[in-house]
C-alpha cells in the first residue's frame, strides 16, 4: 500500500514457460478446437460422399427432398455432436464443482456463467457443423471438401487469432515499461509549462493552509500539516497516474476492439472472447478488478492522511493511531461483475456469433438448392 498505483505484477500468462509462447492449451481452446474439428471430420462427406458413391440418386428417387437430405444430415450429425458436447460439459461440471467447493470467493452466479460458457461451445460447434454440411453439399468431391474445410479450420483457429493480436500491436503499439514510467515521472515532476511542480505547489499549499487556519507558522497549526501535504501531493499523484493508466487501458481496449472486429473473418475470436467473458477472465473483468483495487488503495491512503491531519499537530510527522483507526478501515471485498455486464462488454462478439450462425444457416439452404440441381 503505497502512495502510487501499483503495476499489475505476476500476470499468470506472462509467467508461463516458453512452451506457451505460441498459444496456451487452455480448456477453452481444446473445447472449441476439438468440437469444430469433430464437426469437420464427421461432416465433410455428409452429402459429397453420397454424391460420389451415387447413393444420393437413390435417396432422391425414394422421395427425399434435397432440403430434407441436408437437414437430416445436419440433425443426425448434430446428435453425435451433442453427445460429445454433453460428455465434455459433464466432465467440466464435475471439475468445476470439485474445484469451487470451499472457494473463498463469491460463486453466486457460477452455474449461470457455466451454462453461458457451455452454450457458446454448442453454438460454435453447431456453426461449424452447419458450415461443414453446407460445404459438403456445395463441393462434389469429399477430398476437396475436406481440404477446404481443414484449410478454413487452420486459418480460423491457428492463424487468424495470432495475426489479429500481432497486427493490432503493430498498429496500436503500447509504450514500453520504461517509456511509461518515464512519462509518469516527468508529469509528476513538471507542470505542462515545463516548470517544476513541487516548488509552486509547496509555496501555495503552505500559504493557503496558514491563511485558512489563521496562523503565521506551521508549528502553530492545530492540525498535522503532514496529512494536509500528503493529501494534496497524493491528489496530484493520483491525477497523473490516473491519466497514464486510463490511457493504457484505453489503448488495450482499442486493441481489443480491433482484434474482435477481425472475428468477422472467422468465428474463433468472437467465441473465445465470449468464453473469457463468461469465465470472468477477460481484459474487461481484469480492468474492473484493477480499478476496484486502486479505489481501495486510495481509500486506505486517504484514511491514513486524514489521521495524520486530524490526529497530528503542527509540523510533526509522527502520529500514533489506535485500534479504532484500524477498525475503521474496511477489508477489501470485491464483487465480480454480473453475467449481464460481461455480455454487454462483448456485444460485438455476440453479434459476430449471430452473423456466423445466420451465414451457416443460409449455407445449408443454398446447399439444399445445389443438391437439387444435381438431379
Amino acid at each position, binding site marked *: 500500500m503505497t502512495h502510487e498505483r501499483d*503495476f499489475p*505484477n*505476476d*500476470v499468470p*500468462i*506472462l*509467467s*508461463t*514457460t*516458453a*512452451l*506457451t*509462447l*505460441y*498459444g*496456451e*492449451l*487452455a480448456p477453452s481452446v481444446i473445447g472449441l*478446437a476439438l468440437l469444430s*474439428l469433430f464437426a469437420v*471430420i464427421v461432416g465433410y462427406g455428409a452429402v459429397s460422399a453420397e454424391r460420389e458413391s451415387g447413393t444420393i440418386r437413390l435417396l432422391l428417387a425414394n422421395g427425399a427432398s434435397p432440403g430434407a437430405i441436408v437437414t437430416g444430415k445436419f440433425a443426425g450429425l448434430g446428435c453425435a455432436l451433442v453427445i460429445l458436447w454433453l460428455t465434455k460439459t459433464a466432465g467440466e461440471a464435475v471439475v468445476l464443482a470439485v474445484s469451487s467447493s470451499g472457494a473463498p470467493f463469491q460463486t453466486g452466479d457460477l452455474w449461470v456463467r457455466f451454462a453461458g460458457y457451455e452454450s457458446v461451445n454448442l453454438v460454435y460447434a453447431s456453426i461449424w457443423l452447419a458450415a461443414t454440411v453446407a460445404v459438403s453439399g456445395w463441393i462434389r468431391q*469429399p477430398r476437396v471438401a*475436406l*481440404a477446404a474445410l*481443414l484449410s478454413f479450420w487452420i486459418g480460423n483457429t*491457428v*492463424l487468424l*487469432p*495470432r*495475426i489479429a*493480436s*500481432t497486427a493490432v*500491436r*503493430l498498429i496500436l*503499439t*503500447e*509504450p*514500453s*515499461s*520504461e*517509456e*511509461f*514510467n*518515464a512519462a509518469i*515521472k516527468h508529469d509528476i515532476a513538471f507542470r505542462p509549462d515545463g516548470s517544476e511542480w*513541487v516548488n509552486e505547489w*509547496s509555496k501555495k*499549499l*503552505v500559504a493557503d493552509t496558514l491563511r485558512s487556519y489563521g496562523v503565521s*507558522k506551521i508549528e502553530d497549526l492545530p492540525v498535522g500539516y503532514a496529512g494536509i501535504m500528503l493529501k494534496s501531493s497524493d491528489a496530484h499523484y493520483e491525477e497523473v497516474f490516473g491519466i497514464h493508466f486510463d490511457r*493504457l487501458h484505453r489503448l488495450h481496449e482499442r*486493441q*481489443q476492439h480491433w*482484434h474482435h472486429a477481425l472475428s468477422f473473418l472467422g468465428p474463433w475470436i468472437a467465441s473465445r472472447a465470449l468464453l*473469457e467473458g463468461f469465465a470472468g477472465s*477477460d*481484459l474487461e473483468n481484469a480492468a474492473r478488478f484493477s480499478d476496484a483495487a486502486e479505489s481501495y488503495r486510495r481509500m486506505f491512503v486517504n484514511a491514513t492522511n486524514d489521521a495524520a491531519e486530524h490526529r497530528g499537530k503542527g*509540523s*510533526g*510527522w509522527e502520529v500514533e493511531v489506535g485500534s479504532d483507526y484500524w477498525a475503521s478501515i474496511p477489508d477489501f471485498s470485491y464483487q465480480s461483475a454480473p453475467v449481464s455486464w460481461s455480455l454487454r462488454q462483448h456485444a460485438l462478439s455476440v453479434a459476430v456469433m449471430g452473423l456466423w450462425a445466420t451465414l451457416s444457416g443460409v449455407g445449408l439452404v443454398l446447399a439444399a438448392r445445389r443438391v437439387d440441381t444435381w438431379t
Partner: protein
Amino acid sequence: MISRKAAVLRRETKLLGSEPSVWVLFAVYTALLGYGALQGAVLYRNDLKQISKTREEYDSRWRRLSEKAVAATHGGAEQVWGSWRSASLAGSEEGGSVAWLNPRALSVLDRGYANRNSFVRRVSLYDSPAAPPLANPTNVMYGSMDFAFVVLWILPIVSILLAFQAIGRDRELGVWPLILASGVSLRKLVAVRLAIPALLISSVTVIGGCVTVLPASGVFPLPLILWATAVLLYCAFWTLLAGWIGLAARSSVFQLLLLGAVWAGAVWVVPGVLESVAEVAVPRVSPVQGIIASRQAQTSLAEKAKQLTQQIYNRHPDWIPDLELTARMNQPVPGGPRRRDARNVYASYLAGEEASSEMTSVKTTRDKAIATLVNRLSVFSPLVSMQFVSEELAGTSPARYEWFAEDAERFSTRWRAFFAERVWRLQEMDASAIEQRPAYSGSEEPWRSVLSRMLWPITGGFIWLSAVTFFFMLKLRSFLPV
C-alpha cells in the same frame, strides 16, 4: 545414368509445377513468412530504439546532475547536490543507471521471450526492478505470430501437404502398376518427389530469413547458418514423416487425417502437456506466497533496519558521521517535504530485502529447476526441440533473459557498493565522484553456456529425425519390389 536421373528430376519438377494448388500453397506460405518478417523487423527496430532512447535519457540525466553538483560545489543554488542527501538521490531513481541487453540480429526472425521481457533494466541504489511488461494479456494469450511461428507451425503443414501423396496418389489413381512397369528407379522417384518440395520449402524459408535479417541488422550473423541448417533438418523431418505415413496408410483421406492429428499433437498438444508436466513436477511459487512473505517482512522492518545500521557501523566505525551533521539533518523543515534520513531509507530497504530473501531464493531456485526441466523435456517434441534451438540462436530464450537479469544484478551490486558507503557516511557527492560512478558496458553471455542449453533440444531433434528416417526407409524397403 545421369541423363535418366535428370529426366526424372525434370519430369517431376514439371508435374509439381503444373499443380495450381502447389502455387497457392506456396503463395500463402510466402505471404505468412512475409508478415512474420515485417513484424520482426519493426519490433527489432523498436527494441534498438528503446535501448538507445533509454541510454540517452540516463546520459542526459547525469549531465544535468553533474552540472548541479558543480554549481553546488561553487556555492550555487543547487545545495541539495552538495549535501548529505546527494548520494542517496544520485544512487536512487533520481539518478540511477541502466543495464541493457543487445538484441541479436536473429531476433528479427524469432521474437521468443522478447514480447514478455524488456531489453532494458533500471538499476538503482534501492531496487533494480524488472519493469513488468505492459502488453495486453489477451494478445499474449493468443500467442505470437513471428517468422519462427510460421516455420514451426506452418512449414510442417506445407511439407505434409506436398509430400504425403508422393506415392499414395498414383496408387489411388491406379497408375502405380504402370509406373512399376516403366522401369523407373523407384528409390530415385520417391527421393525426387520428397526432395523437391522439401528443398523448395526450405529454400523459400532460408532465403526469406536471410532477406529479413540482413537489411534489418546490416550484418550476416554466423548463427544464421546454424539456423538455416536447423530449418533444413526440421523440414526433412516433416517431409519424411509425411512420406512414411503416405506409404503406410492406403486412403489419402485417412493419410491426411492421420497427419493432421500428428501435426496438431506435435505443435499444440505435446507442448501444452509438457507445460503441465513441468508445472506439476516443480510447482511455482505463487504470487500470493510472495505477497504474504513481503507483508510479513514489513511488520518488523523498523527494528531490523536499526539492527542492520548498527551492524554496519560496528564493522566500519570510521563511517559514523559527526553528531552535528546528524542533528542538522534530522531537523524538520517547516512546510517542506519530509526529510527522511537516507540511512534509514536504505537500511529499511536492505532489511526488507533480507527478510524476503528466503522467498526470493526459493522462487529463483524453482524457476531455474523449471527451466532445466523444460529444456530436457524438449526431447519429447520435434517442434519444441526446433523452437528452443531457434530461440537460443536468436538470443530470445528465457535463459538469456535470466542471464541478463543476473548480469544486471552484478552491476547493481557494484552500483550499490559505490553509493552505499557515501550514504552511511552522509557524504557529499561532488562532480568528481559523479564521474567515477560505475558504468554498465553491456556484455554477452558466453556461447559455451548457450551451446550447453542447446544440447538437449539438438539431441531430441536428431532422435526424432533418425527415428522417422529409419521407419520411412523400413516402409520403403517393404513397399518397393525387390
